[in-house]
């Protein structure tokens, strides 16, 4: 019973530490609900698959495209709406999307520093040499 004061103080300290990110001045509450500001392509209304699929599974689509092109020599992708695309990250994906304003914003927000696509794959119409190397994760 003599330790009650210490236990309560410890619990309080713990609660304060755990909730610190929510009330501390450095992270305003509005930022906690902020979503990344993505710049959508101006020239196209529809991606190669429905948005919900692309949002959740674009990495699977990219992996399948990669296997198809490199391993199986299949380069044409027939989309769900019948449109035919070239299975190419640089030509098809980056033909509409901008890496910095689309890919990077979401990946930075989600803390997915992962895919090192850009170590090798180029961005169209930009001076890729100027980007400098990205380190492997």
């Amino acid at each position, binding site marked *: 019973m003599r330790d009650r004061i210490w236990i309560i103080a410890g619990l309080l300290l713990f609660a304060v530490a755990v909730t610190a990110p929510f009330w501390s001045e450095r992270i305003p509450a509005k930022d906690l609900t902020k979503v990344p500001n993505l710049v959508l392509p101006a020239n196209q209304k529809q991606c190669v698959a429905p948005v919900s699929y692309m949002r959740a599974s674009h990495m699977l689509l990219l992996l399948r495209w990669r296997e198809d092109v490199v391993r199986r020599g299949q380069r044409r992708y027939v989309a769900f709406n019948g449109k035919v695309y070239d299975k190419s990250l*640089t030509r098809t994906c980056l033909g509409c999307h901008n890496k910095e304003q689309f890919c990077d914003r979401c990946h930075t927000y989600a803390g997915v520093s992962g895919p*090192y696509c850009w170590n090798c794959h180029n961005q*169209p119409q930009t001076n890729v040499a100027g980007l400098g*190397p990205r380190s492997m994760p």
Partner: protein
Amino acid sequence: MKITRKDFLRLSGLSFLAAGSMAAARAIAGRDPSAEGSSGTQAAQPVRWGMVVDLRKCQKEKGCDACIRACNSAHNIPQISDPKHQVKWIWTQSYETVFPFIQNGYAEESDAGIQVPLMCNHCASPPCVRVCPTQATWKRDDGIVMMDWHRCIGCRYCMAACPYGSRSFNWEDPRPAIAHINPDFPTRTKGVVEKCNFCEERLAEGLSPSCVEACPEKALVFGNLADANSEPRQLLRKRFAVQREPELGTGPSIYYLV
């Protein structure tokens, strides 16, 4: 009804037999059409890409390196001055080092100074493929020894296995060493092996390889070695041709007309 041990054994034996014959019948029925189909398409269009290099036409103009330059710019090949870090898809070597078995004491006089263009031989039984632990390099049905750079872990077993020195390792980031990046072809990254891919990205579009297109003398002849009427096969019928180190049993797809 009471079942005797004898009846039980007889019944179970019969049912095993029935199940087994069903499976066998399905396997036979299932295999036949597919086997026919695949062999049918194979017979219709067997492809084995290969190249014939006419050394009489090559380098009519001394020091011509049009094929190498075309390859370098098409495939974003870095130009690194340190010979230990160099990356090469096509390169040249002097005649006597490439074909030492042709030297006879007198032939050297006429051969002196000939630079032979060399590249991946796209072997019929490629040793690099056999040693690759990740299957990052493999042989396609059309004979191209392909690489999947996504999968290469940079162990360099393939470089040790290749008797022709056709493979290069990226010891450093290649991008700073590329003057103009061709956005249509990826660069490579530090830590992967690379080599000539016979311009498979161009073949897919129905074009011939960059080096073949760039040669001013048409000394490089590309075609299907499995087709007896193809251009390389006609040349091979008419002229004496050698391969690089055929005694190793790798079966190179690059022939040199000497």
